[in-house]
């Protein structure tokens, strides 16, 4: 239809909407920001006032002390993801945003589970921990604390396995991610 450089006219019916689309999947946004006071407040405030939900959020330094990385996950079924990234880009302190393609991304999250486990249950919990390649990092008479690293699916699967023992508490960091291959995220 109407190639550039020709006089061929476009049939308007052929035009497709180019934005504002709900993708229906979860997106991991890797955001480089200037390491300045208030940057996280600006991002959190933007999400709050535009009605975007943050599913998880992780903030940390990068190899450059003047730049921090924020990794956040957003539900693309609830919000048009291009609108979220474009609004984020308007923040002057936001340097770069990458919407990581699931197939091209390695994502990890760390979770700590405090599980009620007396001496009888302990062996079984340790067995699950082994299967999930976790580590027991603390133990008391009636509880165990286990560290699990992995994708959110894996962490949720472990949670399902140990919940019947009695989950005292669970602490999760939120996902961090890098792009596969040599290029920088």
């Amino acid at each position, binding site marked *: 239809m109407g190639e*550039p450089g020709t006089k061929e006219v476009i049939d308007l019916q052929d035009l497709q909407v180019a934005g504002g689309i709900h993708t229906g999947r979860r997106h991991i946004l890797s955001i480089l920001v200037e390491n300045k006071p*208030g940057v996280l407040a600006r991002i959190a405030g933007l999400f709050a006032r535009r009605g975007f939900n943050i599913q998880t959020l992780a903030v940390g330094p990068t190899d450059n002390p003047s730049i921090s990385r924020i990794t956040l996950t957003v539900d693309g079924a609830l919000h048009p993801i291009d609108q979220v990234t474009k609004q984020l880009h308007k923040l*002057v302190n936001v*340097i770069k945003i990458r919407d990581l393609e699931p197939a091209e991304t390695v994502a990890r999250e760390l979770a700590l589970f405090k599980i009620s486990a007396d001496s009888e249950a302990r062996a079984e919990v340790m067995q699950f921990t082994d299967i999930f390649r976790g580590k027991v990092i603390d133990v008391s008479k009636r509880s165990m604390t286990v560290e699990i690293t992995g994708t959110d699916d894996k962490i949720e699967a472990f949670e399902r396995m140990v919940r019947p023992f009695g989950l005292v508490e669970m602490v999760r960091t939120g996902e961090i991610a890098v792009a596969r291959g040599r290029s920088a995220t």
Partner: protein
Amino acid sequence: MRAVDAIMESLTAEGVDVVFGIPGGANLPTYDALYDAGVRHVLCRHEQGAGHAAEGYAKATGRVGVALATSGPGATNLVTPIADAIMDSVPTVFLTGQVRTELLGTDGFQEADTTGITMPIVKHSIMIQDPREIPQAIHDAFHIARTGRPGPVLVDIPQDLSRADIPYAPVEDVSLPGYRPTTEGNVKQIRLAAKALVGARRPVIYAGGGVVNADAAKELRELCASDRFPVTCTVMGLGAFPAPHEQWLGMLGMHGTRSANYAIDEADLICAIGARFDDRITGKLSEFAPRAKFIHIDVDPAEISKNVPAHIPIVGDAKRVLPKLTREYRALEADSSRLDGWWERIRGWQEKHPLGYADSEDSEIKPQYMCEALYEATGGDAVITSDVGQHQMWCAQYYHFSEPRQWINSGGLGTMGFGLPSALGAQVGRPDDTVVCLAGDGSLQMTSQELATAVCERIPVKVFIMNNGYLGMVRQWQELFWDRRYSGVDMGTTPDWVKLAEAYGAAGMRCDRKEDLVETMRAAIATDGPVVLDVRVTREENCYPMIPAGQAARDMVG
């Protein structure tokens, strides 16, 4: 030098010739530096007035408006102008004083978390933490305020840091790795847009305030002259296209013309330029322009597909994009006769539904007539500022703006009280033009203290009050949608505006007869210095036509 002297050097380097503000404890050092800095200071009577004056200056001239305030209440009083400036994309810089760094976070006297309070309503803000950052911060602030989509930038300066001794050298580079507005527009997309325009049988050009902000009225007119495209503007875009023109459909939206709204409703292609599909334009979003495809040209990518999904998005500055679009369109040598049928339909609406009102049969002044009289008395070329409400909409309808930056109003935030202080700023920025504030009697009472500023600073604005003794637009909605239960809208007959004007040292005049109105307005304009003209208009008159909120163009009433 002292950091505050560096601020003055920085302001001068940015081309600032006037600032609007009020001093206080935390910005005393700034005012000390201002004393002999060679920058004009306009002492306003409330920080809100200073903020709107800075906006009026910016809107009238295209230059960055600057307002100063102290910490705490001074800064919080700026919140409304800052919010106004973000909504209407007004290039402004706000310099606020802050308590000494040792007091920060202790609830010190006149402490407020200014950057925190204003975070959702600024384009950017900078809290100074090291006085040596100040020259760079000021330069960055001006750069951000005036480039890309313009907007308000706040710089908050703790009092002790503003007194520090720092080295000063002029700053030319910005240090903003995350800020690079796209201005040029993608060439392929522009070509696609040109082809779509050729393919359209029922196109409409819908221009907004972005065209005015980009100083692209000339470029818009050239695009429109490349064929017989029908043109409509938002309330913010008025003046970007000359109102008396055969391609002009009138204003779009809630109180726009039927021709403009019906044309949008039936269009097959809408070319939006520097406009953002606000709810006052679209009405019920799901029924907005149901047959149309959209070209959307805007410098802010986040506006594209925010409310209405675009088919051909073009991110860029209208001044840069429009000439390319015009060139591409002309090269395609479209057959203009394809628009004949469309124009026939539009002319039909224009004949059947012209903008109009029933004039009084006696001397009573209808508010619509007041706007026509204003046009006549000023020859149609005054700078008009307005407050918010019925008078604003009538003025938008009946003062046929033909030039950009001639119409200064609060469109996005809808700030009552905007008119008078913004007129002060506009007059300071354009001393040779006639500046009239068309005020509502309700709105004007929100910032009438700025009459003192007009008198003391010798700013000869003319304030024409459309006085119906009501909060008129609210009364209209109560009449139409709330069963005439007039709750909290009767303003009574106070104040006596003539006496109030005289109390401030301005000239006060009154008019309540139609046959005297044009002459009285002319006399007011010819009077030296500020004048308040109290015009008594019909008390209960409704602003029509109207798309009731949340309804579609087809549901227009009146």
